[in-house]
């Protein structure tokens, strides 16, 4: 399956989610204030396709339950946000911002995550090439060295969160950053590759041995998808 198709669909749904339209018809009871709704993107592979690195059981729960909940909640809070905007209710809009950040972030992060993973039979784990490979060598010396530093960043997250390889939109250089909870990579940095360090991402397979998950996940990283995000 073409990764560009999936990429665009994931980005499109994320985009829709962050651009709620203002209400169209005031006064309609139960009017929908948000025109486009976020939807759960299909996985580009079967739930079991990343085994033994990530089990089908984890993938199914993670996609069908966790990600779906972020999508549902995002739509719910986007609707409330649109309503608050319609009413010029600034206090409610501010109160809703953390909910949009958390659930919208959860939707964006997972959409990017599914796409930057791939079964080994579809190129998962194959080292990056081209511009990304050069950028990694320039910044980290080697892919192995990047992985080591990335895994140290993952292990250092205190609580739930994500580690990302990001590109600085000002300088173009790449670096590793961690984000708390579902904070998405927005603003100055562009997401290139994300790894989920929430316990639900690995606990059923690895329990408290998260270092083993961080080591194994590189076997199913889709470096082609990561490279396509680099500008």
């Amino acid at each position, binding site marked *: 399956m073409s990764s560009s198709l999936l990429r665009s669909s994931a980005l499109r749904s994320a985009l829709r989610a962050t651009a709620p339209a203002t209400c169209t018809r005031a006064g309609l009871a139960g009017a929908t204030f948000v025109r486009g709704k976020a939807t759960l993107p299909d996985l580009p592979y079967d739930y079991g396709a990343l085994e033994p690195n990530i089990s089908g059981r984890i993938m199914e*729960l993670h996609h069908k339950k966790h990600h779906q909940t972020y999508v549902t909640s995002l739509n719910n809070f986007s609707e409330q946000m649109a309503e608050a905007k319609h009413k010029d209710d600034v206090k409610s809009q501010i109160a809703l911002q953390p909910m949009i950040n*958390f659930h919208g972030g959860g939707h964006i992060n997972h959409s990017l995550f599914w796409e930057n993973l791939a079964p080994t039979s579809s190129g998962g784990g194959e080292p990056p090439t081209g511009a990304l490979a050069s950028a990694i060598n320039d910044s980290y010396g080697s892919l192995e060295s990047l992985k080591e530093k990335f895994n140290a960043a993952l292990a250092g997250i*205190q*609580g739930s969160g994500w580690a990302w390889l990001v590109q600085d939109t000002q300088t173009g250089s790449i670096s590793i950053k961690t984000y708390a909870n579902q904070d998405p990579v927005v603003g100055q940095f562009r997401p290139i590759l994300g790894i989920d360090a929430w*316990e639900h991402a690995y*606990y*059923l397979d690895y*329990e408290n041995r998260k270092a083993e998950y961080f080591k194994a996940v590189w076997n199913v990283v889709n470096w082609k998808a990561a490279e396509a995000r680099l500008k």
Partner: protein
Amino acid sequence: MELHHSKHHQTYITNLNAALKKQAEAVHASDITTQVSLQQAIRFNAGGHINHSLFWQNLAPTSSSDAKLSAAPNLVKHIKTTWGDEDKFREAFKAALLGIQGSGWGWLVKTETGTEQRLSIVTTKDQDPPVGGEVPILGVDMWEHAYYLQYLNGKPAYVDNIWNVINWKTAEERYLGARADAFKVLKASI
């Protein structure tokens, strides 16, 4: 429970001791930069140790008489005056627990304002411990490792069922006692 206690809690203790050892060396060497850089590791791992120590103590097997509300007559009276009734209190606690974004804890705490004692429900993120002057009465771990193997993504069910194993006797003792009393389990373990 076994993983949670023998692996997770143990890791916090191991990492705390390592950080404290480094801090002692940094203090000895008057190395302020290192002391400051160690603070977050100490806060996180000490918090993990404190929170879990409080948590185990405020749980009890359902069959135990300590797991009955009748073991906390004074606390329950105060809960009723604050929230109206037990159900409303549980609802409020549940809403707070389910509202945590990411890892964290929910607490019933007692604060003293002048001569008045107040109860309130607070949440702390990650392993931040309840050490701001309040008395922790009950803590509930909302990290995914606390429930995921059993409840998967169904955390409302975990929250509903936690009430079956709350140690109300411990809660009553903490409610009646001073702040230092709630933390005495830590002193005993050092």
